[in-house]
């Protein structure tokens, strides 16, 4: 017990506990049933497992009649096929536990339908603790680590999803654990951490179908270039880590091949698209015509609602007003901090303050080769120019809401892209493991964003409108993004008092979101 309290000081434990209380309170008394994205489908899959009907099969699994009657308050409805994309079963298996236990105690559907929500609430609370440990790991003090961790629990969308039956927050937690061990390996160089990282990545891949791949691929690739030699050991570890990381996702893909003949089969795979002829717009036309970045950012902060309040019809709202403006200022400030931090590292690299990395990894070998080269400074200058031109072009071409806060959100995205491109070059000049983690975090986040963007661009061409611009899709990569930012905060010595002040303002913004926007919205749908 003493060991536990030494690792988790009382304030963060209580903040985490309060988050769990808040999420459970919202789950059972505030957030209407089916008002979480795809909650009805997720619950039906959980129910199939809890009632021992085995692993549901997409296209055959149905949504229970009782759920449909509850949703539409109509006893004449029939049981439809579960239409939501089916994901690998790890989350569903965990969420089935409270439902199974609850079914022994009560028959009340109002309670039973809400029981799996407990898993999301607990995942959210654990997430804050894991993030706290990760921030301490890279050198943040308790005050700063507490402030930044608490901030995550003050984002309305995180709280909202923590109060529903959805895999998003559990996935967030699993990816945070993978990030923790990723950072641990880069700092302590203990091979055991690589395998722990691989284990959590495979669990993440066993929770959601697509987005974990965009984290898994770059994270594992980085671990491979960071693994030590000699070549025989390197091959052995690469093989072991690959096998472990891919085990669960590959098992799921094999199942999909057996049943559907397509490893990435989802409910949308063979669906008829809205347009008979796909649009002929370039990627930059897409960014110019559609508020892509704007929606990703705004929806990340808060897009609440679903088919519960709308009694079967989709009804949702984006958080607006002061809370959104506060969040816009925050991400703008954090992007500025990241850019200043990258400039600091660039200054050190240009002035040969960087030390040569030790070790026998591929990245050490490449770094030594570049640092000794007489054109090394040219690489940084070229990457700087590429970064500023590309990020500037993206900002100019993108649809930006013509207002102060819309401009801030647009600039924040451009600055993150700029920092990530420059980070690629700086990786070869930075031997400090903590700084390397920050740079890797920037690169991974932009890689992740690019994969997601290409996916939603494809959907746009086929559907003719903006689709799937959900900020929650970024959850797998948020732990490493937060880690990069926290390292920048550490290096720039941002005062703990300021972080606490920002965290409390965000806490207030979330309260205002619920009191002035979410609760009236939920009540507006009650009969």
């Amino acid at each position, binding site marked *: 017990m003493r060991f536990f309290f030494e690792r988790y000081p009382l304030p963060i434990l209580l903040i985490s506990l309060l988050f769990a209380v808040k999420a459970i309170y919202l789950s059972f*008394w505030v957030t209407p049933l089916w008002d979480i994205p795809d909650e009805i489908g997720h619950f039906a899959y959980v129910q199939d497992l809890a009632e021992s009907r085995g692993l549901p099969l997409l296209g055959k699994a149905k949504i229970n009649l009782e759920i449909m009657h509850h949703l539409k308050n109509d006893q004449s409805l029939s049981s439809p096929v579960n239409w939501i994309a089916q994901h690998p079963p790890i989350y569903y298996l965990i969420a089935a536990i409270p439902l199974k236990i609850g079914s022994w105690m009560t028959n009340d559907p109002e309670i039973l339908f809400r029981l799996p929500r407990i898993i999301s609430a607990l995942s959210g609370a654990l997430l804050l603790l894991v993030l706290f440990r990760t921030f301490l790991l890279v050198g943040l003090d308790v005050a700063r680590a507490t402030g930044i961790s608490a901030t995550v629990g003050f984002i309305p969308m995180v709280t909202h999803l923590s109060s529903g039956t959805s895999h998003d927050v559990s996935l967030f937690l699993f990816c945070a654990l993978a990030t923790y061990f990723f950072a641990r390996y880069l700092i302590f160089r203990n091979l055991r951490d690589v395998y722990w990282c691989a284990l959590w990545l495979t669990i993440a891949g066993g929770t959601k179908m697509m987005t974990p791949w965009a984290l898994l691929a770059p994270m594992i690739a980085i671990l491979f270039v960071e693994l030590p030699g000699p070549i025989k050991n390197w091959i052995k570890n690469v093989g072991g880590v690959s096998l472990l990381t891919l085990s669960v996702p590959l098992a799921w893909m094999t199942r999909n091949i057996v049943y559907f003949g397509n490893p990435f089969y989802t409910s949308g795979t063979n669906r008829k698209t809205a347009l008979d002829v796909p649009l002929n717009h370039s990627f930059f036309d897409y960014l110019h015509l559609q508020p892509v970045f704007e929606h990703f950012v705004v929806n990340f902060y808060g897009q609440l609602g679903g088919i519960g309040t709308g009694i079967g019809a989709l009804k949702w709202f984006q958080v607006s007003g002061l809370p959104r403006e506060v969040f816009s200022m925050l991400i703008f400030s954090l992007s500025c901090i990241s850019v200043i931090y990258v400039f600091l590292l660039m200054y050190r690299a240009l002035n040969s303050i960087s030390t040569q990395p030790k070790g026998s990894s591929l990245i050490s070998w490449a770094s030594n080769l570049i640092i000794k080269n007489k054109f090394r400074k040219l690489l940084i200058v070229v990457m700087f120019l590429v970064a500023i031109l590309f990020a500037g072009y993206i900002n100019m071409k993108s649809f930006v809401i013509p207002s102060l806060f819309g401009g801030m959100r647009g600039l924040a995205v451009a600055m993150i892209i700029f920092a990530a491109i420059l980070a690629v070059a700086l990786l070869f000049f930075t031997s400090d493991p903590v700084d390397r983690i920050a740079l890797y975090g920037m690169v991974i986040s932009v890689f992740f964003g690019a994969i997601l963007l290409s996916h939603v661009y494809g959907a746009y061409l086929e559907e003719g409108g903006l689709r799937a611009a959900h900020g929650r899709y970024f959850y797998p990569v948020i732990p490493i993004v937060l880690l990069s930012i926290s390292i920048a905060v550490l290096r720039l010595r941002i005062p703990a008092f300021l972080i606490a002040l920002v965290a409390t303002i965000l806490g207030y913004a979330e309260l205002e979101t619920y009191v002035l926007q979410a*609760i009236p919205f939920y009540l507006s749908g*009650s009969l």
Partner: protein
Amino acid sequence: MMNLKQYILPLIWMAVFVILVSIRLGDAYSSTFFHTVLESSSKNNKPSKEIVADFYMMQPLNWTLLDNEVFRHDAKSPVCLKMFLANYGDRKNNGTFALTLGVDAQKHRVVVDAKTVRDNTNHRICFEDLKFVDIAFKPVEIVLEGINSQKGAAISAWMTQDVRQGKVVYKDGTVLERSLIFSVETIRVSNDKFIHSIILSLICCLSCALVFFASTCTPINSNSKKNFIQRDNT
């Protein structure tokens, strides 16, 4: 022994926080809330022309979409109308426009200052003296007309392609294949809103106090990176 000094700052902050919350959200801690009884749906929305002087558009209501149970529940509640308006990217607009709810021969007209309209948000106007029973299932017209806003400094209203609520008609009789985006609301009373708000406020205040407590009460030597890395590795 507990050092009381280190608790003073978090306690002061908590007191300030509670005062600020109660000032800003004071009105929200009530039992009344707005319940949507009828609304149009968004579909390929487009803004109208600027609502300048002489601008006029009329929108009927389709009561066939109203639930009878809702009508029975809300019959004696006051009515509000929420319109989805735009101000051209937080442009500084001026002048006024009017929103009229015409029921039979009666006109309930409210004049609105264009400055008070926020961009792409639902603007709510309440008719305190009008009960839901006075308008429900009766021929009702929503009229939006400009009074004295100038071009380049006026607001606009969003319109949807979903015309189940009826089509917009201009002053010259032109019928548009679009409908205004609006909601008819009633004012309801429920203790749920008050209780939820109070409980969430308490959780928020406690969480914020703990963040502040952590920032002021952490031992100074705890920010040594070396200490933490060593501790984490044990």
